[in-house]
């Protein structure tokens, strides 16, 4: 009886693995690799790559720059309504991307909530590259904030207290103690948020449109090329698979890497011949 179950479980695992891996593999198997690389050179793919890199870089930089101190304030603070605030931050995570796109449109669009104000300032966001940046930042920031807040919550408060008694002003406590101690968690949060931002589709489509060379990001190019040139769509898909694989591998390896570094310093410190 036990045996039968063990066999069933193994078969289930094999089935699940095949189900997940086969489509990913199929991306590479449909056309020869040389064709894939060639397809990445088409103007549509090249433009999309540039748009994606540019908008993601700007959006991600903004998310890190604003999100990190924000996460520190929320993660270390104790104030009324903290639980509510956390829920508000997570809300965009559970929204369908298309809903996020509409929400951005009715906020920053020409006829949106802030549209009049922005208009008066001569700023037109909808269907521009800035709109892509906003859309990407909107979908990736909750992911980053949530993980970054958890990282800062995990920092031992006594260490921050110790820094204060040693005369460190708030910024120094943050930069010299909290930030390095939360760094591993922040790195992982940043990587996952970046991946989410690069893959953003729905919000970008609704808020920024899909204009080649301006707002057409890689995922939008996959959709656009799907009917025009399947090879290009496949090539971009393969690119995402590679990027994702590198990212996941890095996430797995980085904690191991820091551990091995600390181990080697431990060895050199404890062996009398090398200690100075």
């Amino acid at each position: 009886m036990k045996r039968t179950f063990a066999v069933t479980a193994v078969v289930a695992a094999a089935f699940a693995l095949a189900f997940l891996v086969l489509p990913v593999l199929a991306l590479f198997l449909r056309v020869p690799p040389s064709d894939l690389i060639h397809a990445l050179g088409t103007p549509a793919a090249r433009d999309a790559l540039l748009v994606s890199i540019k908008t993601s870089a700007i959006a991600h930089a903004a998310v890190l720059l604003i999100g990190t101190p924000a996460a520190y304030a929320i993660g270390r603070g104790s104030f009324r309504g903290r639980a509510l605030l956390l829920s508000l931050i997570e809300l965009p995570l559970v929204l369908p991307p298309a809903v996020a796109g509409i929400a951005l449109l009715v906020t920053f669009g020409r006829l949106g909530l802030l549209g009049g104000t922005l208009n008066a300032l001569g700023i037109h966001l909808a269907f521009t590259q800035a709109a892509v940046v906003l859309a990407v930042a909107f979908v990736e920031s909750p992911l980053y904030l949530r993980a970054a807040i958890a990282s800062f919550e995990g920092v031992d408060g006594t260490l921050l207290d110790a820094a204060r008694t040693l005369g460190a002003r708030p910024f120094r406590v943050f930069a010299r103690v909290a930030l390095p101690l939360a760094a591993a968690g922040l790195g992982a949060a940043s990587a996952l948020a970046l991946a989410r931002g690069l893959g953003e589709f729905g919000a970008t489509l609704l808020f920024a449109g899909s204009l080649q060379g301006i707002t057409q990001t890689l995922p939008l190019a996959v959709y656009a090329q799907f009917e025009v040139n399947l090879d290009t769509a496949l090539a971009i898909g393969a690119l995402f698979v590679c990027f994702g694989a590198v990212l996941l591998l890095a996430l797995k390896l980085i904690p191991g890497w820091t551990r091995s570094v600390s181990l080697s310093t431990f060895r050199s410190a404890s062996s009398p011949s090398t200690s100075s």
Partner: protein
Amino acid sequence: MALVGPSGAGKTTLLRAIAGLQLARGRISVDGDDWLDSARSVDLPAEERSVGLVFQDYALFPHLSVRKNVEFGRKGGVALLERFGLAGLADAKPRELSGGERQRVALARALAPDPAVLLLDEPLAALDAHTRSEVRAELQLLLREADRPTLVVTHDFEDAATLATRVGVLVEGRLRQLGTPAELVASPADPFVASLTGANVLRGRARALATGLTELELPTGELIRSTDPAEGDAVAIVYPWEVTLSRTPPDDSAQNHLAGVVASLVPVGNRVRARVGPVTAEITAESSERLGLQVGGRAVASFKATATRMLPEASPAMPTQRP
């Protein structure tokens, strides 16, 4: 000085309040500088108070080397590293250090900015029993060298007596007694202080005798005599080193003899702490051997009426003294 008290007495809270890490009301003034004065809405943030705080678990920055830890408060702490015997460990990370080394780093780090006041929170609690006495002696020397107002909080009277010249007993946020360790031992203000300093505390009912002595009747019916006056519910206090043990009731000048079963024999260095009936006696290992004491065997604990202090059971309200 040191503050001793049971956990929950507010010792750590007091240190955190002095350091500015805890909201507090009242007045804290150091060298004429007001750090906290609720009446005048003065409340300096922690980073502006000239205080060195050694945390209970040392709170060393795990990502920084020993040198960077010590120099966190002020650059150029190299001399401190040398003085604390840490020069060879300058590049080590805190997790590579032993408990005693961590404590030295924490102390060096706290002293580096040359604080007006040094605070230590349970400095020996994080250590193993076998390194404790060694580190305690080391800490005693380092504190003497640091030569500045120092407040140590601990739950252990022996630690406090070793590390401080004046010891305060803190219970439920109130100072019960303040004095030199010797004063606290010689005349504990109340039964709690007495038990904290390691005395045997025996409860019973006291009455005056015609001879001028006081007799305390224990719940077991046994009688204890003291030269101190007392009436009604009272406690007799006698230190373990005032108690002698014998196999049969001795014919000597001691007035008090309590026969009982030896419940435990704990060697402490060259001495043995023996629990006989309701009292603990501290005798030399040699005497213990000579008497053939064994757990479960019988013995008589004797102590003089002149070595027996009497205190009323419910202590009158103590006039609180300022530290």
